[in-house]
């Protein structure tokens, strides 16, 4: 069968760049295939996506050599409109892609632009809405939908055109674990129903492999370094060398000394063939690992009692929350969107005032303190650093909070320099912030909070949108801060984060705390996983399949081993 999409020695360089962003790209995709394009941030995978959907060369200008053909015709001879009839793109930012005022209008958007008139217009919208299961929400505004529902609408919006290729740019980035799993199932289902080829751009390998993928195209530094079936890639060292995280069960098998080969079908924990020999190796490794000593108990820092909060709209976001956090802890606050975890952080920081209950720091009630006064004790770091940065120079940005507090300039200089050292920003101290990477900007915002010397910092989704290397960077940095005695609390839906870094996870659901335990215990508890829209870790399944009687302990020891032996 002829391929739908074919790249032949394609190179592209943006007009504003000194060097090409993608080099010598050659691959092809046939009807009905499902391809994963993986690679670390900056490897050129988003640029490649733009070359597929026509934004390059029609919106972003630059020089190219080689050919990209769709159904045998070169894309540069087509218009962006013709390309969009063949390639349907679902962008990462589902709020940006949702351009209609309601679900129905958004699904109708492409049809409206094609001058499709009623009654056909309404009929097609309805049938696509039924296909992706949003037909009962047609009149809803985007603000009334969950992240998963918005993504379904985005998908419906491209499915109204009978496209041959569905292109997904980081479809998992903004979803909680259970919804991410459903998203992969939905993509799979849509592919089977429509027969379209699917191209997924992601770096979360294990989550994408929840459903079968035909090939993985691995990119690094703008080049394709591998184009092979998942089983083959998972058996070699390329993935980890490129900074892509392999599935946890594979890491565990490797720790245990097992060799991974393609004929083991390692692409899923459901398919992987475990010989008795391998199972025994895993059991041996488990028995050889000592259980970690329990952490010593520190005095209570934050004490929250019977806290309730209702928004003016009448939404009861928090219902009688009682919890305490000890000095020096590294805690994850998890749950789905709307579970109350963000509201909890906002009430603790004094952004919102509770109707009932108390928030106390070292026994002192914080009710009477203003936002600014509370911020001296509890710092808050927003998810997107671009939402906090308002100065041009790094120094001024970090100094902002001190200057508004009237600290003498000499002391400001000393404290800012100190914070820059701690955050690893000292070499960049005279750079403009715009020259920094996303991860470095994140450090700037953390520095600008640390400089106020709070007892505790709360971070909203500290690792959102980060590839594995940047994720590790940020988390190692937070662990280091924690070791210096700063209490850290992270609001997140990232399971890896809660499992690997947090000593403790507090799980919110429906405005209540439904669990407060170690990550390993939570991610092996089916009832909690279901209620909080989490996903069980594949380590748990591995432990079961190896016949271990305490899968929880296995998960915990794996984490401890990574923390102690591997990362150091």
């Amino acid at each position, binding site marked *: 069968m002829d391929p739908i999409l074919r790249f032949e020695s394609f190179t592209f360089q943006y007009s504003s760049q000194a060097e090409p962003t993608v080099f010598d790209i050659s691959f092809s995709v046939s009807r009905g295939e499902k391809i994963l394009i993986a690679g670390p941030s900056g490897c050129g995978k988003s640029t490649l996506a733009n070359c597929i959907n026509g934004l390059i060369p029609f*919106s972003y200008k630059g020089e190219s050599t080689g050919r990209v053909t769709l159904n045998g015709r070169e894309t540069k001879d087509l218009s962006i409109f013709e390309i969009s009839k063949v390639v349907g793109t679902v962008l990462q930012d589902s709020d940006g892609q949702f351009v209609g005022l309601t679900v129905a209008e958004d699904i109708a958007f492409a049809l409206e632009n*094609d*001058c499709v008139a*009623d009654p056909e217009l309404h009929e097609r919208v309805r049938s696509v809405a039924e296909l992706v299961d949003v037909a009962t929400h047609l009149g809803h505004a985007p*603000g009334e939908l969950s992240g998963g529902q918005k993504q379904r609408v985005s998908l419906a919006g491209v499915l109204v055109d009978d496209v041959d290729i569905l292109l997904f740019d980081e479809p998992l980035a903004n979803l909680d674990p259970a919804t991410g799993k459903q998203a992969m199932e939905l993509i799979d289902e849509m592919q089977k129903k429509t027969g379209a080829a699917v191209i997924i751009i992601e770096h979360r390998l294990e989550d994408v492999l929840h459903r079968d993928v035909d090939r993985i195209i691995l990119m690094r530094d703008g080049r394709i370094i591998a184009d092979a079936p998942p089983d083959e890639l998972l058996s070699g060292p390329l993935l980890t060398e490129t900074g892509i995280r392999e599935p946890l069960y594979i890491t565990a098998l490797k720790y245990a000394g097992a060799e991974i080969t393609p004929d083991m079908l390692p692409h899923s924990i459901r398919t992987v063939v475990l010989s008795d020999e391998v199972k025994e190796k895993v059991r041996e490794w488990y028995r050889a690992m000592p259980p970690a000593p329990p952490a010593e108990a520190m005095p209570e820092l934050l004490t929250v009692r019977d806290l309730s909060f209702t928004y003016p709209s009448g939404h009861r976001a928090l219902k009688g929350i009682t919890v305490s956090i000890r000095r020096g802890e590294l805690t994850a606050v998890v749950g789905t969107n709307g579970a109350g975890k963000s509201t909890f952080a906002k009430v603790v920081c004094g952004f919102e005032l509770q109707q009932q209950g108390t928030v106390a720091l070292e026994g002192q009630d914080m009710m009477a303190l203003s936002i600014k006064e509370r911020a001296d004790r509890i710092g808050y770091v927003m998810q997107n650093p671009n*939402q*906090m*940065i308002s100065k041009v120079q790094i120094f001024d940005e970090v100094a902002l909070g001190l*200057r508004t507090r009237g600290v003498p300039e000499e002391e400001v200089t000393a404290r800012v320099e100190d914070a820059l050292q701690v955050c690893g920003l000292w070499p960049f101290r005279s750079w403009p912030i715009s020259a920094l990477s996303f991860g470095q900007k994140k450090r700037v915002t953390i520095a600008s909070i640390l400089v106020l010397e709070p007892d505790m910092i709360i971070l909203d989704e500290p690792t959102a949108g980060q590839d594995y290397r940047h994720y590790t960077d940020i988390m190692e940095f937070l662990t280091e801060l924690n070791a210096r005695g700063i209490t850290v609390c992270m609001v997140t839906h990232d399971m890896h984060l809660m499992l690997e870094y947090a000593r403790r996870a507090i799980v919110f659901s429906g405005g209540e705390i439904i669990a407060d335990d170690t990550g390993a215990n939570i991610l092996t508890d089916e009832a909690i996983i279901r209620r909080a829209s989490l996903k069980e870790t594949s380590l748990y399944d591995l432990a079961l399949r190896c016949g271990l009687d305490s899968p929880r302990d296995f998960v915990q020891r794996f984490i401890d081993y990574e923390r102690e032996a591997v990362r150091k």
Partner: protein
Amino acid sequence: MTNLFNYIDRSSPIHRLTGATKFVCLLLWSFAAMSTYDTRMLLALALLSFALFRLSKIGLRDVRFMLGFTATFMVINNILVYLFSPQHGTEIYGTSHILLGSGRYALTQEQLFYHLNYFLKYLATIPIVLLFVSTTNPSEFAASLNKLGVKYSVAYSVALALRYIPDVQLEYHEISQAQQARGIEMSKKASLVSRLRSASSILIPLILSSMEKIEVVSNAMELRSFGKHKKRTWYMGRPFRAADVASMVFCVLLVALAFTLNHINGSRFYNPFR
């Protein structure tokens, strides 16, 4: 805030008119009420607009929040007019019947009559705006503009404004909370210049992130064929019916009536003092 403009979904003859019709009627009605100061006509328009309110099944209670603002605005404006120009009535009507006091602030019948007219002017125009706001689905608004001959690109930017107002509002709120925690203040305690500088430290991140959004949204729209043809259809568009045509004709007649009255009166004002 999903219902910023207070659209109230009910089933009434007014709701069934297309958005385009209502918009044309709003413009014509406002134009008629603006072009004349004929007391009788303003009174008639005011009464008629209250009758239309009944017809639309929107109660005063539904719009009391907006009525509150309007009343305040109206009172302040009346006071301002009186303070600045206590003999405005005499200038307009050419006579002076003093009721009490003397000098610049002597209260004249003409001034009172002018204020009555000014007040009626509000009553003739504001309820109709409230009526439009509460009976027109915002989703239909852009489609209506396009139907009335506004280019669809411009009409769609109106739709985009409506779409992104809640997002911008939420983002502003979040940024402002985080910046307040860092000590940014905009209250009266700080000087004017520092208040504005503070506002900028919220605005800068808000606007830079909005510019990223502009980039994403325009890509998303192009990838879904926006701008492909000279025309586009609208999911929320509706065809005109007899009632639509009748309403528009009626409002054209209102404008004609206003001009006729102005001609008969010899000016925009109905003058009982001559």
